[in-house]
């Protein structure tokens, strides 16, 4: 039991649990299966990007450009399927290829020129997004093909509510689940995954131990790009329009969600489960506010409070802990 409370995730689960109880006591619709499936669907887009961001943060970097990458790959994908047709796999493939390439550029710049990742990705964000708007004129795309619309409505599990309206596990949520599983496999069961943790823990040591830093670092940013590509398609599936300004601006929200889930910006720390909990916490907060009829203007404010309180809590504990350990170190030195 005591060990359980060492994990950041335990606190998150508790907070989510408490929040859910409060929301349910005010509006019992919250706990309904329909609302749950709906939340899983509408947050899959943020969730997918959060997984990519998790890997980047674990490796000790940060990526600000992923929203721009998602926008670019989504836009090109939409142009392609409108002009040449195709199916969902073509759409995903195009988006993924472009996303991965753009992500790889980030990774290579960061690896070869040792530019801090935050700087590199702010620059590339401006470059990707700027060129997209210049080349396309920033027009919105509404006329997505019918099969694209139909695909978004596929449900793997279907239930009917009391009014006879169908709901259930959407294909979009399923994509998110696939992404989550692949991230867990990579992080837990491959050398690549362990080398990401090693890189985030200590760059020099991990290279001395023999991890391939070049491969790891390029992979992390390429994977972020790949997932941004997937997220771009998912977002288009969800809203059925492609607008160049609909994703950009979400960067810090995603980072906030992942960090709430216990990933450290210094690298080396973070879990997929935590990242999902972070996304869930913000999603429940937003959903709960709607259900509790709190004006939407309060959302940002509450997000700020949640970030500061929850991260403040764990950081303060870290501080106390590190204070203790350093005292012990000094005592041992003097002996």
């Amino acid at each position, binding site marked *: 039991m005591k060990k359980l409370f060492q994990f950041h995730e335990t606190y998150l689960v508790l907070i989510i649990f408490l929040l859910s109880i409060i929301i349910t006591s005010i509006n019992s619709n919250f706990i309904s299966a329909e609302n749950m499936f709906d939340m899983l669907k509408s947050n899959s887009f943020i969730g997918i990007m959060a997984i990519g961001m998790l890997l980047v943060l674990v490796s000790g970097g*940060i990526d*600000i450009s992923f929203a721009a990458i998602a926008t670019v790959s989504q836009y090109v994908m939409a142009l392609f399927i409108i002009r040449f047709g195709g199916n969902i796999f073509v759409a995903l493939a195009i988006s993924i290829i472009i996303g991965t390439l753009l992500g790889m550029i980030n990774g290579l*710049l960061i690896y070869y*020129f*040792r*530019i*801090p990742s*935050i*700087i*590199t990705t*702010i*620059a*590339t*964000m*401006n*470059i*990707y*997004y*700027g*060129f997209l*708007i*210049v080349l396309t004129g*920033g027009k919105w795309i509404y006329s997505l093909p019918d099969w694209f619309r139909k695909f978004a409505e596929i449900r793997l599990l279907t239930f009917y509510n009391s009014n006879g309206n169908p709901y259930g596990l959407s294909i979009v949520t399923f994509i998110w689940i696939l992404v989550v599983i692949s991230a867990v496999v990579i992080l837990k069961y491959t050398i690549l995954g362990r080398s990401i943790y090693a890189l985030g823990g200590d760059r020099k040591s991990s290279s001395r131990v023999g991890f391939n830093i070049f491969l790891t670092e390029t992979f992390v940013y390429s994977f972020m790009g790949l997932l941004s590509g997937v997220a771009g398609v998912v977002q288009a599936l969800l809203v059925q329009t492609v607008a160049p300004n609909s994703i950009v601006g979400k960067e*810090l929200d995603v*980072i*906030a969600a992942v*960090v709430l889930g216990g990933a450290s*910006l*210094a690298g080396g720390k973070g879990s997929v489960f935590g990242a999902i909990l972070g996304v869930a916490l913000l999603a429940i907060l937003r959903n709960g506010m709607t259900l509790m009829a709190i004006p939407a*203007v*309060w*959302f*940002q*404010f*509450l*997000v*700020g*409070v949640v*970030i*500061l309180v929850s*991260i*403040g809590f764990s*950081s*303060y504990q*870290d*501080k106390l802990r590190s204070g203790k350990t350093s005292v012990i170190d000094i005592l041992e030195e003097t002996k």
Partner: protein
Amino acid sequence: MIKLKISMDNETKVLSLILTGVIILMSILSPGHFLRIETFQGMAFQLPELGLLSLAMMISMLTGGINLSIIATTNMSAITAALILTTWIVPEVPASTDIMIIMIAIIAALGVSVLIGLFNGILISVVNIPPILATLGTMKLLQGLAFIITRGYVISGMPDLIRFIGNGKVVGIPMPLIIFAIFAFLMASYLNHTSTGFNIYMFGSNSIATLFSGVNNSKVIIKTYMISGLYCGVAAIIMMSRFNSAKAGYGESYLLVTILAAVLGGVKSEGGFGRVKGLVLSLIILQVMSIGLNLIGVSAFLTVALWGLIMIGAMISHFIIEQRDLLKLSVSKS
């Protein structure tokens, strides 16, 4: 110490080179339009806002931190001032009390921004939250608060005296530029000639060494973010008077540009390095580019993309220069 001086010189050299290149390029691309007094006056009105915000960003980056809440702080203090001005100043009351109220509004705006800085500083130093997260949280908090207060509406209709700060001229020099020059000078002398300024650089280079040399690190951080806040407050007053209004969500696109400007000006994001001189040069480069490209009729988005390219170019050249210096150093040592 000697090495530090050399790399600083390189910094200025590279920046001056880029600046000359950009100016020449712009003059060639639009010969009739670029080299005119109006161009530079337009620049003189736009540069100060971004400049003050970049200074606010820079001082936090010098400690190895970052201040993501600068825009939110700016909007919050602009809204504070605007609320005071629009509710207290009524046309019927004689103008003599107006100046008092304007003074109060300005002091309130600066006070709010410094308080926000204090809040950030405490979160970072006492509660021990990493700067990027602490200021991200404050940013969200303030954005939310600004929306709650204003309900998303614009507060407009400032008195003429306030408008003078943003749009007026003194002996042909735009007022915002004068304010910016004063505050840039103050920042430079604060950083270079006070012990706190020195400690800020020290903290950025090695916070543990700074602690063990008897510096109160918490105090340094709190002061840093308070100054960062103060500069946002000054930017708020200029922005409010230039737009003649205040609103939640003004100028949010500035946030990442300020980081870009600071980094291009030689501020290291790990902390410890960076001069006001470099920042001012990089601001001028960015501004010359944006105005020049605008004159040729290039979209603002392409300008932003080019800023990104220039930044990466600058970082790569820094890297190469650094490598070369390291090589020289190791050769001469052996």
